[in-house]
């Protein structure tokens, strides 16, 4: 026996994030996640259709509370998320570098940008009604007001390609959805799930109520069609739909979503050419809102 005791590494068990908890997949299965060069990084839970349905239940249950909080309060909570992200900067940098095959410097720049983008969306929570709502002029002694309200449960197929997709891309699609008071079920990128699953740990420790964000890793061809056909999902963001044909591809998901009258945000024409570092604009913020118009008699 050697006198030198070699220390064994403690590997992290990545788990799903559903309803504020960290369950393993209902299937009990995992799949191997590799870095850009094919080296093993970790095992990620192989989420199933059942896991996705559980996540939708959790997201539905969270709608009332989250959409009911004041916009100011939502902004504070999201800012708190950014604070927590800042504290975990090194971890996310390592995960992004491995997932996208980047050097440490470039990965760190992407993480910084993701945190800044989160802060940017946090600022929008109490300003979105100013640009999406209106006091409408009418020919009568009434007020006529249009106010934007959250759509409800939004299914997100997280970006799977493009510069910065693994974390900055995820933040760019997730933050605008929850900033406006929706809750989200995210089918995270199948090949690069680790930054997303770590984001779950950040959300769990930053005042975001359980169920507002649910992160499920697994095969996109299993998870995305479940979201698209589920009647209790109100809208669908197809940013990471599989290229080409078949289950999980944008066209088939849109067809499923049409059956249940969902609002759908289509993916970019060429997702792999998408640069997530570009300034986002308010498009995604305004995509998952419904306008409520009320007539208010002035009491004459």
């Amino acid at each position, binding site marked *: 026996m050697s006198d030198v005791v070699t220390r064994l590494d403690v590997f992290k068990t990545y788990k799903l994030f559903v309803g504020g908890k960290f369950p393993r997949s209902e299937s009990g299965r995992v799949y191997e996640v590799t870095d850009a060069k094919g080296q093993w990084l970790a095992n990620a839970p192989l989420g199933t259709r059942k896991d996705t*349905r559980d996540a*939708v239940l959790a997201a*539905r249950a969270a709608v009332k509370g989250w959409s009911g909080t004041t916009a100011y309060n939502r902004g504070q909570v999201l800012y708190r998320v950014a604070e927590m992200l800042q504290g975990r900067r090194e971890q996310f940098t390592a995960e992004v570098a491995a997932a996208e095959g980047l050097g440490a410097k470039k990965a760190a720049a992407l993480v910084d940008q993701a945190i800044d983008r989160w802060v940017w969306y946090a600022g929008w929570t109490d300003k979105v009604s100013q640009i999406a709502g209106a006091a409408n002029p009418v020919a009568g002694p009434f007020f006529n007001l249009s106010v934007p309200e959250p759509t409800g449960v939004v299914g997100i197929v997280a970006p799977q390609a493009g510069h910065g997709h693994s974390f900055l891309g995820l933040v760019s699609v997730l933050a605008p959805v929850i900033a406006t008071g929706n809750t989200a079920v995210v089918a995270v990128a199948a090949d690069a799930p680790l930054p997303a699953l770590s984001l779950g740990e950040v959300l769990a420790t930053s005042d975001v109520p359980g169920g507002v964000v649910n992160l499920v890793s697994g095969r996109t061809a299993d998870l995305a069609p*479940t979201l698209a*056909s*589920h*009647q*209790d999902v109100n809208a669908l963001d197809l940013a990471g739909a599989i290229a080409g044909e078949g289950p999980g591809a944008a066209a088939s998901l849109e067809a499923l979503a049409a*059956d*249940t009258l969902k609002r759908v945000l289509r993916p970019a024409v060429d997702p792999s050419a998408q640069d997530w570092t570009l300034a986002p604009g308010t498009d995604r913020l305004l995509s998952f809102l419904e306008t409520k118009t009320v007539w208010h008699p002035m009491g004459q």
Partner: protein
Amino acid sequence: MSTLAAHAPGVAGGGLSDVAASEASLRRFLHGLPGVDAVGLEARAAALGTRSIKTTAKAFAIDLAISMIDLTTLEGADTVGKVRSLCIKGKHPDPTDPDTPQVAAICVYPDMVATAKAALAGTAVQVASVATAFPAGRAALPVKLADTADAVAAGADEIDMVIDRGAFLSGRYLEVFEEIRAVRQACERGDGTAAHLKVIFETGELQTYDNVRRASWLAMLAGADFIKTSTGKVAVNATPPVTLLMLEAVRDFKAATGTQIGVKPAGGIRTTKDAMKYLVMVNETLGDDWLSPNWFRFGASSLLNDLLMQRQKLRTGRYSGPDYVTVD
């Protein structure tokens, strides 16, 4: 049941007729019932809850469960409008699919019986009314009997009475027995027919499984048509082990006397999965004879929506959500 065999030597009903002759004989009989193996009971109930029921069997079970529901509203805030809308839901649980079966009954407080009866006129849906100072049962006997007679006069088809848990727990079994007898008489309509009597034990307050077994036998001897677990108003309501225990008591009572008694678990049954576990228990313990709304009921309110959502999923292939069923 060796103890029973001593009391009932092969004659249907015969050996049990004098059991309630006196407080002492009733106590001797109830305390002579074999003790319940709690660990075995819970293990058996848990094992029966693991069956996987899919596709056509699931569709059958969902429809059966819907047809067994006593759709219940027992709130202080119940209004005529709420009871009417519940009746409409009972008649047409899923307006998008006319093939959906109707529920078994609408369960309301006595003052709402007339409203429910009018709303359900011309349908096979029964009106059940709780009575006897539900849910606590803390009132004098004449008050309880008047409560019951009132509900029957208003047209209730079924009466859900609560036993006096205080008397039962202090060992005054004959008092409980006589009270059930008296309520049973109050259920008679005067034309030779009588409202069906369901006896609620409030098992969450009976402390032990042995007490549940004793209460089951006591109520069946006293002439209950149904035995029911709970009011739904206390912390612990119907659980699978308690229901299994009552199903076994019903089975043994049929073997001893030839009389078939129904069972109704109530409270806390909210999901299709729960309902299926109960149906499996009924089938495995009592068999086909009890798999009908005449002999098995669910006391529930939110269960119906979950059953309807599962039914829609089987019909359309899409997972449904609470937006697609009524709120109440």
